[in-house]
């Protein structure tokens, strides 16, 4: 096994043609060149070998937390496919103190590329103090600066996610995404009598919780940009209709202006508006609704099915699907209205477009020759790439950094059921997210505050 330096890894790690990054890590490595341009290499990426010893226990900290902090970080980074953790049983030594110099030979001998060292202590006021440092083993250099966090002891898991985000960002140059949650629909019961419940979990599947709502059918919850609200479609009145839920109180508000049948809502990036589709006289069109005033504005008037709208991050455009050209295709329209411009032209049907939080790509569901795919394309419709294929893959949801997607995959037949998966936009690293029930309609929160 040939070890690689983190810098060399940086050079081969990339998704797009040229990445310009500007991170503290790069600045620390090359003070004269804060921007490093990396050439793309679409070859196989050999994951960085990662060592995360249990955090050093200081002043009264719980040894379970010291182990779990390290475990959650390992799991997060392993889940990217860009890191591979060395089992702790292979370590030749364990760090005993946070401040003593690192014995790099103990880590190079087990082929570690990256070493994460942390400590956890309990302060007299009951808060946890968590510290960590990140090391490039072959260069024997620290990557970035050490960080320190204070938190109440129930929130240790979020500290693990924040540390994971810092490591991921420093090593890859990509944005954070571990300290985030996923809302979805938990499904139980037989296929012809399914019970659907709104549910929430951490990005890694931990802290699963069902949300309170009337027992009627619910569909496709979506986060507000501030992550404290969701919007979803429910059948409480017998018809599909858009509702807001405050996540801290789980109080549900209906939007009186959305009478009739309304569905497929999503927030704008600033949270002030929602875009959705409404059906009147059998015809489904796109509307924008301003939440503070309840003023609803029609955006499309076509006789076709116009649905599944999604805002661009700058709030200026909406991508949606329409069958106005005969089959389902993707279109972009200004939020001020006007003509919609078709962006998808390939064979098959395109549906459920979702604008990346980075603004560069649109993820979609494609149905072609009886198979379903999750794919991405540029905003102008070029560079389409299909990432998955199965009997039924549907409903992509962007990670906050725009580099990973979740979606749901349903298996065929009478026992068929949905599960949530994630995949890197490179098409690598397809993973099933463990949930305690069937699960569909995932939506990824922004990074938590």
């Amino acid at each position, binding site marked *: 096994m040939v070890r690689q330096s983190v810098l060399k890894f940086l050079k081969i790690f990339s998704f797009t043609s040229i990445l310009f990054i500007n991170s503290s890590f790069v600045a620390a490595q090359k003070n004269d060149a804060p921007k490093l341009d990396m050439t793309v290499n679409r070859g196989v990426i050999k994951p960085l070998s990662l060592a995360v010893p249990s955090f050093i226990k200081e002043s009264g900290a719980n040894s379970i937390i010291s182990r779990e902090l390290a475990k959650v970080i390992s799991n997060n980074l392993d889940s990217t496919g860009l890191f591979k953790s060395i089992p702790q049983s292979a370590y030749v030594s364990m760090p005993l103190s946070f401040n003593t110099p690192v014995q790099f030979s103990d880590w190079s001998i087990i082929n570690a590329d990256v070493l994460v060292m942390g400590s956890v202590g309990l302060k007299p006021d009951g808060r946890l103090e968590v510290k960590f440092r990140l090391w490039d083993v072959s260069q024997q250099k620290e990557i970035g600066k050490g960080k320190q966090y204070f938190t109440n002891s129930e929130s240790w898991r979020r500290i693990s996610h924040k540390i994971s985000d810092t490591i991921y960002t420093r090593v890859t140059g990509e944005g954070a995404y571990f300290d985030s949650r996923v809302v979805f629909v938990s499904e139980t019961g037989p*296929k012809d009598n399914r019970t659907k419940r709104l549910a929430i979990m951490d990005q890694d599947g931990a802290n699963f919780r069902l949300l309170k709502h009337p027992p009627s059918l619910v569909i496709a919850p979506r986060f507000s940009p501030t992550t404290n609200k969701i919007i979803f479609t429910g059948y409480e009145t*017998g018809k599909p209709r858009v509702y807001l839920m405050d996540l801290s109180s789980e109080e549900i508000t209906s939007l009186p202006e959305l009478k009739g049948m309304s569905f497929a809502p999503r927030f704008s990036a600033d949270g002030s508006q929602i875009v959705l589709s409404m059906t009147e006289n059998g015809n489904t069109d796109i509307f924008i609704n301003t939440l503070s005033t309840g003023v609803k504005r029609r955006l499309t008037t076509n006789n076709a099915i116009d649905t*599944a709208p999604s805002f661009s991050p700058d709030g200026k455009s909406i991508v949606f*699907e329409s069958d106005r050209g005969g089959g389902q295709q993707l279109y972009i329209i200004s939020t001020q209205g006007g003509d919609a411009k078709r962006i998808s032209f390939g064979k098959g049907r395109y549906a*459920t477009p979702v604008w990346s939080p980075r603004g560069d790509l649109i993820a979609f569901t494609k149905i072609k020759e009886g198979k379903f795919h999750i794919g991405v394309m540029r905003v102008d419709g070029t560079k389409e790439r299909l990432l998955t294929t199965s009997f*039924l893959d*549907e*409903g992509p949801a962007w990670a906050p950094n725009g580099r990973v997607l979740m979606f749901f995959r349903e298996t065929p037949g009478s026992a*068929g059921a949905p599960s949530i998966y994630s995949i890197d936009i490179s098409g690598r690293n397809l993973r099933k997210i463990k949930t305690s029930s069937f699960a569909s309609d995932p939506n990824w929160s922004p990074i938590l505050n």
Partner: protein
Amino acid sequence: MKNIGLAFFVILLLVGCENDKSFTNSLDKAQISESDIEYFQNLVGDTVLFTVDQSGLRPDAISILNAQVNWLKEKKFLPITIEGHADEQGTREYNLALGARRATAVREFLLAKGIEQDRISIVTYGKERPLRVCSNEECWSKNRRAVTVVGKKLLSSD
């Protein structure tokens, strides 16, 4: 005439519908009157089927709907909800819109034949409520449907 219809219904039951709950339940009834909702569901036919990704009414649907109109005209006090459904081969949002198109197609037909507008409400379930659960055309063709539910009305203001 009524008895012949009933006998035919029972034969149908014995021949091939043992899995269908609504039929089995009806077996327990000693007699089904023409005015019963079960009669509408099973003998008039409360369900019309659609072609893949279409909401146009096929000839088989039109003959069922004509029978529905005749029955519904005798029951002026009964409200009607038309449910539109799609098979699992489409995406969730599109199928909701497609189900709405199908329910609307049935509603338009009933209105054109003189059923009162204020009796009828429509709802779409998209692919959320499949009747059959296999993943092939045999089931999908039964799931692409619009069902006329009598005795139920959703408020249009909701």
